[in-house]
């Protein structure tokens, strides 16, 4: 069992190196460098030299990559071109806000999805299932910014219950930010819930028709116990996988949603950085997101192994 965890961590580590490499190389590949990209017409003379010195562009690519990664691990992500501040400061509170938003969405969406998935799977093709599956279908196919716009229209403009956009600064306390989380979290949860629910539902339906559930019925096990003891553990295994995929999606979706609601998180920071052509900042944020994704995947892998005895080695489990 330990061996599997170590192996997975090893792979995760390699993946991180690979991803960092991609992020780094894609910027290296452009003609010129981050300074010329930022300064554009003004990329000449002392301004250019100062920029190059600050960003350390006089070192070779390989050295820069190594330094960049080493720095990143310690928390030093370089300096933003536009704001001339260490990136770490800029990112700090925004990261907290984004994690707050994403975390709330996940904390609400995942359990809700699993429950709904079971509900729908057990009542396959009945009204409850058709309704749930239908709504899930809509949530999955309508783009998030559309859903967000619609919700803003209904709840912020028409009913005036919630703020349409966020006015508080990034450094505001959690309590101040909270009301602004509600609508964006609803949108994000909707999509997440839809996908996870669908997977759970399929898993439940598959397992309900499996040989071992049929056998349990022939043993005389009451239906309720079959669901809890025989179906649920097996149904959760593929669900955990989808949860990992969902987090990947979440990292993309959160960028769009933050933009719609003007929420002071990593997403809006990244977009701003792109508009400003502040490449070091863009790179750093891409790196952070990728790390989070790899980390979540690792957790999902380990959870899957814990849930499914078949994924463990043949050593006895007490």
């Amino acid at each position, binding site marked *: 069992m330990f061996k599997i965890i170590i192996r997975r961590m090893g792979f995760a580590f390699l993946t991180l190196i690979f991803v960092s490499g991609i992020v780094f190389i894609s910027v290296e590949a452009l003609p010129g460098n981050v300074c010329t990209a930022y300064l554009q017409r003004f990329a000449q003379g002392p301004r250019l030299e100062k920029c190059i010195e600050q960003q350390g562009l006089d070192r070779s690519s390989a050295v820069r990559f190594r330094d960049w990664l080493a720095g990143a691990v310690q928390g030093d992500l370089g300096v933003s071109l536009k704001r001339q501040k260490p990136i770490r400061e800029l990112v700090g509170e925004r990261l907290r806000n984004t994690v707050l938003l994403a975390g709330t969405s996940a904390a609400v969406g995942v359990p809700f999805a699993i429950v709904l998935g079971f509900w729908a799977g057990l009542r396959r093709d009945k009204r409850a299932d058709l309704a749930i599956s239908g709504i899930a279908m809509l949530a999955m196919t309508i783009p998030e910014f559309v859903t967000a716009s619609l919700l803003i229209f209904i709840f912020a403009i028409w009913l005036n219950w919630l703020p349409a956009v966020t006015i508080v600064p990034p450094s505001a306390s959690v309590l101040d930010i909270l009301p602004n989380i509600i609508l964006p979290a609803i949108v994000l949860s909707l999509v997440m819930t839809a996908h996870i629910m669908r997977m759970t539902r399929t898993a439940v339906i598959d397992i309900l028709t499996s040989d071992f559930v*049929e056998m349990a019925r022939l*043993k005389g096990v009451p239906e309720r116990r079959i669901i809890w003891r025989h179906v649920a553990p097996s149904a959760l295994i593929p669900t955990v996988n989808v949860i990992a995929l969902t987090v990947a999606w979440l990292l993309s979706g959160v960028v769009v949603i933050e933009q719609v609601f003007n929420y002071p998180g990593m997403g809006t920071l990244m977009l701003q950085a792109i508009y400003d052509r502040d490449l070091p900042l863009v790179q750093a944020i891409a790196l952070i997101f990728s790390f989070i994704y790899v980390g979540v995947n690792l957790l999902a892998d380990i959870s899957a192994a814990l849930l499914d005895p078949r994924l463990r080695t043949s050593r006895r489990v007490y």
Partner: protein
Amino acid sequence: MSAALITIDKLSLGFRGRDLQRRPILRNVSLTVDVGETIGIVGESGSGKSTVALAMMGYLKPGLEVFSGRAVFNGNDMFALSEPQRSRLRGSEIALVPQNAGQTLTPTMTVGAQIEEALALHSGIARKARRTRVLELLSLVRLSTPRVIARRYPHELSGGQQQRVAIAMALGSGARALILDEPTTGLDVTTQAHILEFLRELTSELDISMVYVSHDLGVIARVADRIAVMYAGELVEQGNTRSLLRAPAHPYPQALLGSIPRLGERVIPASLPGFPPPVGEARQGCAFAPRCPLSVDRCRNELPPAVELAHGTAHCFRVDEAALWKPAGNPVSSCRTDTVALEVKDLAISYFTPSLPSRLMGVRASPDTVARVDFAIRRGETLGLVGESGSGKSTILRAISGLIPPKHGTIELNGASLPGSIAHRSLEVTKPLQMIFQNADSALNPRLSVREILEAPMKLYFDLSQAELDQRVENLMGAVRLPISYLNGFVGQLSGGEKQRIGIARAFAAEPDIVLCDEVTSALDVSVQASTLALLKRLQESRGAAYIFVSHDLAVVRAISDQVAVLYQGRICEIGPTDSVFKPPFHPYTEILIGAILVPDPDTAPRLLVQDASESSPPSIGCPYQRRCPCRAGPICDTEYPPIRVLADGHRIHCHHTSAALTARASSFDRNLETRTLSAGTEQRVLSQ
């Protein structure tokens, strides 16, 4: 006479087709099972035997409905009860031991927890006592380390262990009746024999009724007091086991018995023409009529009623004539020539060789999967490779065909050495060596027409015009006795036996010198098996190909082979002309294998070792059979590889006992394998010495 515990009364059930027409799976079946009695339900695929057995529990697979009739258990009309009522009876009064225990045990619960669940539901034993009872049950089913096994998950157990767990679970609830649906299918011959012996003892100890479903008449003969024979959803005959097997009244069991290969003689059994009807086909007359040699018009139009006989009942209009008809097999004559087609010398194959870094870290190579294999085949000859699972027989075929390069040793085809890997073999070299696979479903591309499947090898090896291709393809279809109209169709529409014939035709399309047959009859129904064997023999005679025939079924190998090699853990134990190998003197393993075979004769008991153990890998030194051998020659068996003892006729045995010792041992046992009749009531066990 004890009262009937289970009664199936004129039961007809099935499903509704797309046009809402009734498609019957069972037609008008009536059966009874008395208290303490064991009844065997025998049939091939599509016969409805499992459906009948499950109906006794009031269970129908999804999509099925009862058309008419009843199923009564212990006075309860099972289909009239509500689902909760049925649930209460199931598991507690009537329990099921299913076919594939590996799939029917919940993968996320330990085995012990699942047995405990059954106990908690039905037995009313207190919690603490339940744990003990679980361990008791596990030792009852002869599992050697109950505490360890109870903590294991289903996938951590072997097939035999899983099956025993399923039996333990069924027994735990204290059921009065057990339904066993092919519980030993897929298990080794020796394991199967052990489980059956133990079931016999159990039922006499505990006075339980058993309904044993199987396609294997040998198994049923050993276990059942009465037999019910099913064909295509109809009950064709039932009666006392001994009498029915000695002299069946209905043509179908007659033909079935005639088509089972026997160990005693080298005969291709009589084959039944045609194939079983498709499932759910609606018909008016007897289901067996199209294939029955005695059928007349009446048979096709009317359903035969039950005819009372001395031993039971049969559903046939021509019972009297059937009794006189005896299907005869064809004795086999060898068509081997003297030219050596394939020669294998000192072949060793290993699945896992540790890489250099692993070896540096001290990981030792495990013993080779296959080692020290030598044999030679001549044109027109058939070499049979027999053994249980893990014997390496399929591995050897893979090495010869080039899928796995051998670790060392040579394979010579027509005198020229074969490159180990298929990637290094030219078309000239692959053409003479063709293979037929076990599972025809998987071996034929569902998206290609039959014509395209047969043309593929011809297009690859020969340069032919389209007209020539068409001609050859039609010849092949004729050779395998399939209608030309099948050519433009697809394999999805064909039956198992028909598909296998296409597989055979495809192999012969290349005009091979050697055909590798990997368990080609194992997935077929018995009635189809015989005709497939006859086809293979005919093709050999007309085209002069040599066969390497791999099978776990000794009787089938006996029927078709000129030479036989017995394998254990990838090493040859014994090799020689078929007649010599199947008669004493034997290698100790061959003796056990032959002894474990179940023949359709209730008075013939298998000979078994007290211990039923299976090994996962061979020992690194010494004789491969050292751990299980009942008659070891001494400590030398552990340290040195056994030498070859040459007996008459090129018969070679690998054993530390001398030829004289082996011959002497042989004379103390029965010479004729078919009459292992024992005096009534006694059982003979071979004990380890």
